[in-house]
């Protein structure tokens, strides 16, 4: 690839090795970030195609081209890939690695070798996940939640999938650890906590969750493996255990994990809006601290996935109460984003459109989250396609759109080249339409009682399912468009200036693509990050 703009860019110079080896052994945070990006996008496509397969099967009631067993394996693998391989590392590992050190004025993360090591652990986890598809008795069929005791009994490759999740957890922990130390230790002189841009802030909160929540799922999955291999009973009632305890432990991690997905996404949006509205972000401190608040309270609400699981009545209302409390800091962020646009001077570029789509989808996802959080209504819609719609809205409509926004925002910085704006805008529109057609009907059939993880369904749900399947194909088309646009532009796009959007954070003050060292001299910070005049 030819990146003639900058001679000593990180594309050209890695370490003592050249070419591919230079990439694979590089400890440069930018190169590692980019490797994550390529890996994650590939897994996203695999997971997405599995999603398309499910939708095709669900277009009509009855068996079409998958067997029930295959369908179950498909949604399990789809869930595992999307959650553990795509959205949890997603923004933090890709854009966090690429830009967080630059944004705080550092040359790299605190432990560059560890950073590379996390990447390889990630790949090892990915390989294990893929292996689980092919060896032994077939792909796992437990759902991504691995609920015991089904998961202790199912004859399929549960162990491989569980170990994959365990290994991926390790990678996530190490990334989090690295980021916390980096943010504590390597901020440029003069950059106090409240002069730090908000994307690093959100990564800081995220990193704490990664660090403190992941071990719990680690130990839980280990217990599951021990139960399967050595008959050490923890969860299987035949061996004395309590299945509900597994659910507790699983969600103690997996609920905070949803904030691992969304917090960096919120951080990205908080970077994009001020840049395109040319306004200082409204309520800087409120946004920064609400990230921390979400992380802290979000740790304690896991039971809202278990209202019908047989918990005590007391636990049910306690969890419902806490769940509603977490909604408040999210609301604060939405309000602050919108007020940042007030009286700004908004340039409508592709990243901004994606950001707007994010806010819209996130609001729908979040507000339907409130329906799920309320005890009475959750009883009805729990484990129906209403939940499926909720989390796709918030995970894909939220985190996914934020990823696309980030990609379009930082693309010129990463490659030093610009993509075709018109095509980017069109793909945004198509993806938005496809997305809405795909998931909105699922809310409605969910309210009517369509359970999730159903390979087959009663005829009254057909219309909703059919419309939804059409949406999946429109969505696929949109992705194809984005893909073509970006791949072509990375190689042949117009060479850009170092700061095409007029951003004020540090990454825009250095050449595109950045040099290996990021900064010739470490900058001294005197102003806040968004001081538009």
């Amino acid at each position, binding site marked *: 690839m030819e990146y003639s703009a900058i001679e000593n860019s990180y594309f050209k110079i890695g370490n003592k090795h050249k070419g591919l080896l230079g990439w694979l052994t590089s400890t440069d945070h930018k190169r590692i970030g980019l490797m994550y990006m390529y890996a994650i996008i590939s897994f996203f496509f695999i997971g997405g195609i599995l999603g398309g397969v499910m939708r095709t099967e669900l277009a009509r009631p009855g068996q079409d081209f998958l*067997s029930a067993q295959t369908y179950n394996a498909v949604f399990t693998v789809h869930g595992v890939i999307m959650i553990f391989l795509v959205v949890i590392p997603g923004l933090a590992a890709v854009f966090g690695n690429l830009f967080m050190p630059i944004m705080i004025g550092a040359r790299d993360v605190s432990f560059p070798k560890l950073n590379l090591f996390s990447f390889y652990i990630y790949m090892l986890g990915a390989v294990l996940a893929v292996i689980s598809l092919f060896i032994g*008795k077939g792909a796992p069929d437990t759902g991504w939640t691995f609920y015991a005791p089904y998961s202790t009994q199912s004859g399929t490759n549960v162990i491989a999938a569980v170990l994959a999740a365990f290994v991926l957890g390790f990678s996530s922990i190490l990334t989090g650890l690295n980021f916390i130390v980096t943010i504590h230790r390597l901020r440029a002189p003069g950059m106090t906590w409240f002069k730090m841009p908000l994307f690093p802030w959100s990564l800081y909160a995220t990193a704490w969750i990664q660090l403190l929540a992941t071990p719990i799922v680690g130990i839980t999955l280990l217990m599951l493996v021990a139960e399967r291999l050595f008959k050490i009973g923890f969860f299987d009632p035949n061996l004395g255990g309590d299945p509900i305890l597994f659910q507790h432990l699983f969600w103690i991690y997996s609920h905070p994990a949803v904030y691992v997905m969304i917090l960096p996404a919120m951080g990205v949006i908080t970077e994009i809006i001020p840049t395109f509205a040319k*306004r200082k972000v409204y309520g800087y401190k409120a946004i920064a601290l609400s990230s921390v608040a979400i992380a802290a309270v979000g740790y304690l609400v896991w039971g809202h996935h278990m209202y019908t699981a*047989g918990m005590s009545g007391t636990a049910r209302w306690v969890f419902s109460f806490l769940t509603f409390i977490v909604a408040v800091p999210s609301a604060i962020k939405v309000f602050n984003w919108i007020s940042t646009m007030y009286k700004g*001077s908004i340039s409508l570029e592709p990243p901004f459109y994606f950001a707007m789509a994010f*806010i819209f989808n996130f609001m729908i996802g979040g507000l339907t989250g409130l*329906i799920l*959080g*309320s005890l*009475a209504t959750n009883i009805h819609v729990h484990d129906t396609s209403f939940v499926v719609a909720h989390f796709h809205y918030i995970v894909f409509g939220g985190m996914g759109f934020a990823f696309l926004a980030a990609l379009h925002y930082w693309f010129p910085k990463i490659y030093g080249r610009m993509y075709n704006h018109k095509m980017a805008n069109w793909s945004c529109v198509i993806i938005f339409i496809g997305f809405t057609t795909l998931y909105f009907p699922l809310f409605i059939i969910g309210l009517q009682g369509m359970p999730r993880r159903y390979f087959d369904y009663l005829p009254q749900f057909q219309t909703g399912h059919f419309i939804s399947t059409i949406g999946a194909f429109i969505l696929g088309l949109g992705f194809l468009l984005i893909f073509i646009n970006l791949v072509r532009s990375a190689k042949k796009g117009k060479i850009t200036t170092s700061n095409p959007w007029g951003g004020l954070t540090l990454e825009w003050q250095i050449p595109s693509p950045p040099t290996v060292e990021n900064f010739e001299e470490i900058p001294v910070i005197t102003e806040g990050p968004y001081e538009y005049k």
Partner: protein
Amino acid sequence: MFGTGASNFVEGVDKTFFIIIGIGALFLIGLTMLMLIFMIKYNKKRHPIAVQVKERMSLELTWVIIPLIIVLLMFYYGYIAYKPMREVPEGALNIKAIAKMWDFSFEYENGKESNTLVVPFNKPIKLNLFSKDIVHSFYVPAFRIKEDMVPGLKDNFMWFIPTELGKFDIMCAEYCGVRHSYMMSSVEVIPEAEYNSWITQIKKKSMKEEMKGFEILKNNACTGCHSTDGSKLVGPTFKEMFGSDVTVITEDGKEQTVKIDEEYIKNSILTPDKQVVKGFNKGLMRPYNEILKDEDIKEIIEYFKTPDED
């Protein structure tokens, strides 16, 4: 929007829905409008120079406090509508609901068993929930009720008063393996008089169904995958199986035709994957070597050997 409603909980639940969706829609529409207006009004072309608006503490506090009040309100309504679901009135009719892979069965206090839930109109019904194997969930959309059926969990229950006559779907709402989506049944709400006569008619079991082997097959949920009436489920039917010929695929992938005898059945139960019946998937039936004792298997074989009466 929610389909039919046919129990005493429908009103509370649906009301909570409307409150939360209503408030949510207001916010969604309001904020979206704002976003669009700002995008147009403060567009660079129309508004070339941004005005740096000063932050105001009072505004910030407003949008902490108002949402806080709103969510507490939502919590309150959800709680109020939910609370009665855990408070069973005196004198409710007790019925045992048992789930296993992959069917529901119901046992009435007088010993009557049924595969569909038949209940009298307008009477409080308490279901005591049990599971024989893994977690299932009892879901009746029309009644707005759902509760997991957890193996080993004591005192697990749900209750309701049916407020409409008719037949309503029961679905399993916790993923439980291959036939999860077919694990359905129905609630039949009938007038009390009809119910009283229904409950007293206890169908006499056929001779074969009285056998101990059949009991074992039911208790271990074999009948979830194997029918006794000739229909094909996840596994081959048990009907007239004994003594017939079957084509199996051995572990090394070869096809073989074998006669179903005592030895074969025993092996099929203990190591099902050694010889897989052609046309069926391997890995579905798990080895029962730790679950069934030798005597059990003998009883099962005894049952298979017995010819059908009719």
